[in-house]
């Protein structure tokens, strides 16, 4: 094969692989992106039940109810609005009342979601960034609050 022919074959192969990958990526993207909202945004946007989403905020103090089996219910708040969350499974080590949390799952009613993943902060200095932003938006965030007391 000539140099030119070889180069053309190479370019055709490259285009095929890259095109295939781009197609796959677009297809995968169309149904595997999850949007992040704060409880206030969920209240404002009036999302359809059945939508898959992530919500972030603080676990409302006194709202955690553990019921029979491994089901737990709690309220995620950003101060302005609340969202009820139910979850079956073991909560992460760092899940605590009054602390930041991100829950991913399906919206069952306009103010209730069934979560299948719960992410809590990883250490006392770390607050999920989404939660910080959501709280800042509602004016509930004080700079420096995350610095642990000595």
């Amino acid at each position, binding site marked *: 094969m000539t140099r030119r022919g070889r180069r053309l074959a190479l370019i055709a192969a490259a285009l095929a692989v890259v095109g295939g*990958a781009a197609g796959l990526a677009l297809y995968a993207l169309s149904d595997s992106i999850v949007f992040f909202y704060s409880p206030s945004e969920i209240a404002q946007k009036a999302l359809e039940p059945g939508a898959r989403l992530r919500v972030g905020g603080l676990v409302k103090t006194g709202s955690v109810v553990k019921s029979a089996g491994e089901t737990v219910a709690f309220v995620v708040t950003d101060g302005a609005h609340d969202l009820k969350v139910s979850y079956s499974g073991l909560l992460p080590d760092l899940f605590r009342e009054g602390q930041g949390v991100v829950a991913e799952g399906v919206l069952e009613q306009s103010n209730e979601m069934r979560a299948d993943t719960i992410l809590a902060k990883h*250490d006392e200095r770390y607050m999920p960034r989404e939660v910080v932003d959501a709280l800042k938006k509602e004016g509930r965030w004080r700079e420096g609050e995350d610095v642990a007391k000595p």
Partner: protein
Amino acid sequence: MIVEIGHFALVLALAAALAQTIVPFWGARVGDRGLMEVGRSAALTQLALIAIAFAALVNAHLTSDFSVLNVAENSHSAVPAIYKISGVWGNHEGSMLLWVLILAVFGALVALFGRALPAALRADALAVQGLISVAFLAFILLTSNPFERLMPAPFEGRDLNPILQDPGLAIHPPLLYLGYVGFSIVYSFAAAALIEGRIDAAWARFVRPFTLVAWSFLTLGIAAGSFWAYYTLGWGGFWFWDPVENASLMPWLAGTAFVHSVAVMEKRDALKVWTIFLAIIAFSFSLLGTFLVRSGVLTSVHAFASDPRRGVFILAILALFIFGSFVLFAWRAPMLKQGGLFAPVSREGALIVNNLLLTTSCATVLFGTLYPLALEQLTGEKITVGAPFFNLTCGALLLTACFVAPFGFSLAWKRGDLLAVAERLTLALIAGAVIAVVGAAWLSGRSPFAPLAAGLAIFVITGTLIEVVMRAWRPGLTPGAALRRALGLPLSFYGGALAHIGLGVTLLGLAGLGFGAETIATLHKRVPERVGPYTITLDWVGERVGPNYKEAATTMSVRSGGVVVAEIAPARRQFEARQMTTTQAGLATLNFGQVYVAIADPTGDGAVPARLYWKPLVTLIWLGAGAMALGGALSLADRRLRFGAAARAKAGGRSLAQPAQ
């Protein structure tokens, strides 16, 4: 005092790095051998100085000198000694110091063992390596000084993050950095070749050992990190497509492509421009990873603290080295001479397919990692691109690459015979197909991935083994002669074979997960709970006190058909200093599979809520990675490819021919 010496040594190291950048580069331009030689001594000096700085920081951590901010924030007098040492790089400042230490180690390796290199090429490579050091030393000294003092000194430190109090911290970051930073040498040599405007098979021979070292360590580093996450996070997962993990996967994919293309260049003198390009992007991805992890744009376990100044500084470094090298590439690459011709169906052709698939999968990971960041900057919308995206795109491409691997391994250089190879691989193809069909029937179609991956894994492993046998044995050969032939095959051949088998083994481990089981249950004493083929019984619950923690401890027995096969002790640790809890999963390895139990806090009446998993073949994931790294090491040990061997032989030959000179 020792701390100040460390700080001072670090400043001197910056000066040495500056000298290493400017003097040899100038020397290479004016053709002054003496100036070029300065690069070597500067590189060795730089290593010595950074080693002093690093030792000073280790000493401060070991002696719990809380007047040093870094120690006070990340250590505690009650922490065991091993975690005091590993705690040195368990924080932002210390980990950056480890980064430059390894950078200097690689520079010194070139200075020590690069005698056989053309002087100008070595001088330029050391200069580029020096420039990387300058950038990162300046970054450390200006924004992340590990030697900063704290006045007044506190009586007690704030403790090392309990998640990091694990042998994993002693192993994972150093291995990963040896890989990440190892690609810096490849990058420096690529830049040097572009500056010189000349590149040939000899270049590939010089770079190959460094590539193999970096790639093997990166493989081990990623595997160690994934195993650590697996047993420490209590979710039983080992790969989360977390942006930080992706940041380490991208250089690995680009580096794997490079390891293959550099072989083509070395053996056939082809694909030169492409190989240079891969060398540049492999290290660019390492820098991107450092940026993503260290700048605070992402929040994850790996982001120790975020400071916007740091982000901007690293972004500037990233821009300098990526754009700088791309400009150099665009300007000089067209001058490089094109090399040997080959037919599309040949080992070269197969390696091009491998490179295409690897770089494209790398691009999908890059896209999935950066798209959410870009979208948020542009529109303010926050999204997560999760595992399904990566599994579908990157996964599909990598599975295709696995399918191509045995073909490429069996094809001849220059012009191959695909039909003959397919015939040779028939047995492997059949074995793979049988496994896939049996697996699919077993799972009755629950997950199409697991049986497919299992079939592919068997195909890769048997296909590679067939090639090894066929190289040594021909019909009619006596076993003794075949054995002699087998021993005569080059080590680099066995290295490649082992790496491919390792790939198959890892894939088999991944496939095994589809055949596992998991349940969430509240365990009561002496009431067995079933998971997969085993039952788990809670025997004891209680409290224990460790050096710097309290734990809710349990013991459980794992039974198979009524017989106890293992005892496990899952626990939850409560660390006083940071008010944090960690999960100690209970693991029992049974025939390459593992029973994995993670518990929640015991309830008042002595019952324990727990997650129970049975993960068949799961250990193969990491054993396979180990085999891949060992394959890299075997290739490295090949005498013919040892650093500069060919050039030394040539030099020796010349002096024999001309004894009078």
